[in-house]
């Protein structure tokens, strides 16, 4: 049996952890939305500024989950935390920026090109935390609870002890990030099943 022990939603204008609001978009701010969260949460990781939007969202949501479940850093060995992420549009948001660099801005940009793969965000999270575990990024037509159930079950049968999962969909001004932590013990936490995961994910992510 597995449990959903922490989760973070990051949308166009709100960010919440375990259902509680942690940030709301300040439209009057000069800072971009993700930067507003970064500053308000007093994160210190200058590499954040170099990341593309997918990695920034993954960074913010995974750091917020770590604050909600700080014990995971010590309770698991460095290769026991699997990363299972998926989305619909792959890295298209950054792909478009890279195309723009060589079509309209003088030359292909190497720092954009290195982010034109959806799994780079997994690398960023692994680098920051020194996590050497399993990684997987899938591109699916829509958020499918079943997909995460299946693959956490598989990875738990092959040595991973916990899984940081994510639906990380960003394209243009649409943002739909939902990260959740699956552990094999979790007193009082919702059990991992399709119904609970769908409920926690929320109706918008299921029907989009």
């Amino acid at each position, binding site marked *: 049996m597995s449990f959903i022990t922490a989760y973070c939603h990051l949308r166009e204008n709100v960010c919440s952890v375990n259902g509680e609001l942690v940030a709301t978009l300040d439209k009057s701010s000069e800072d971009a939305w993700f930067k507003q969260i970064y500053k308000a949460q007093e994160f210190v990781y200058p590499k954040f500024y170099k990341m593309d939007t997918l990695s920034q969202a993954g960074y913010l949501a995974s750091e917020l989950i770590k604050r909600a479940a700080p014990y995971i850093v010590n309770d698991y060995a460095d290769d026991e935390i699997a990363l299972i992420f998926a989305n619909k549009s792959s890295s298209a948001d950054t792909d478009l920026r890279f195309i723009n660099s060589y079509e309209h801005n003088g030359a292909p940009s190497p720092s954009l090109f290195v982010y034109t793969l959806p799994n780079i965000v997994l690398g960023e999270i692994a680098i920051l935390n020194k996590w050497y575990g399993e*990684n*997987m990024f899938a591109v699916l037509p829509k958020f499918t609870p079943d997909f995460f159930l299946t693959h956490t079950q598989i990875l738990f049968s092959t040595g991973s002890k916990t899984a940081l999962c994510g639906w990380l969909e960003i394209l243009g001004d649409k943002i739909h990030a939902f990260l959740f932590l699956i552990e094999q013990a979790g007193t009082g936490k919702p059990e991992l099943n399709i119904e609970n995961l769908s409920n926690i994910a929320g109706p918008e992510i299921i029907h989009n």
Partner: protein
Amino acid sequence: MSYIGAEVIISPLGETTEENWRALSENRSGITKVNAAGYNDENLFLGSIQNHAAESRFTALTIRALSQIAEKIDRNVLSSERTIVILSSTKGALDVNVTDQFQSPAAMLVEEFKLANQPVVISNACISGVLAINVAGNLVKNKIYDHAVVIGCDVISDFVVYGFQSLFAISDQPCKPFDAARNGITLGEGCGAVVVSAEKSIFSESPLHLLTGSSANDANHISGPSRTGEGLFRSIGKTLNANQISGEEIDFISAHGTATVFNDEMEAIAFDRAGLSHIPLNSLKGYFGHTLGAAGVIETVASMQMMRNSTLLKSVGFGETGTSRSLNIITENRQKELNTVLKTASGFGGGNASLIIRSL
């Protein structure tokens, strides 16, 4: 127990597995000089497929590969509810529609082959192919599906060519994996496909065993290979342990070997640390170029063909040791019975993956 078979390669070396094997066994390379392919119209060496449809090349290749697969397995398998198709690719049909790189091509496969389940796309940079075969193996082992068809495909586009040029990562010669004079990759394109199944009887030609492996992140840099080979070392160790195979049992290693200075050095360190530096090894990039998300599947298929033909294939492009730890790189084709083969891959995002194929 998972079986793997019905393998297909479509590449510059040929439209079928047989054509590809003939070329490989004659040490022919699919890499040619293409005029004005670069961002500043430089001539570049590429492993590009000639004469194939100009539009929807990705979709066309995957359909051709799946059509060939259909001829090699029980006719009821493809459309079965117990079958999943897994696509492995980095950029899919990006050249047709940037914001729909995978969904429309996947939908085409569903329509064309009456697939019962929506295909899953695995997009993990250059380890996509090996990872996808491992996912297939795990889905079958855990009885979530009985059969999984893995199709690895990527096509050459201005996007990837300009990108790797911006990283100064493209070789000015056909790539030379593990060689002292290597100076970068040669991009390639193609499609590889295999069927993983719990049932031996669905294959028209006898399959091999898939010993599912694992992945490990380097936790080091998003685009620079680890200096210690940590992730690859860990992935190989986990794969061997999980299958209770000792390094001595490995007859051949199909390495990733992209021919960048740092990648090949990283791999040499990892193989050395794993105690595998004496095992015959090649990189197939000198034949196909680097086919990115297709590479792991194409190279697994080629390794299966090596096993079926009891042949160690020369590592094209290699002449002189160019890594700090020396490896047993195959310099001439030779006959040898191959029972246990290790396939590895490493890529951007710090990913590493490995798997083992065993003869029955």
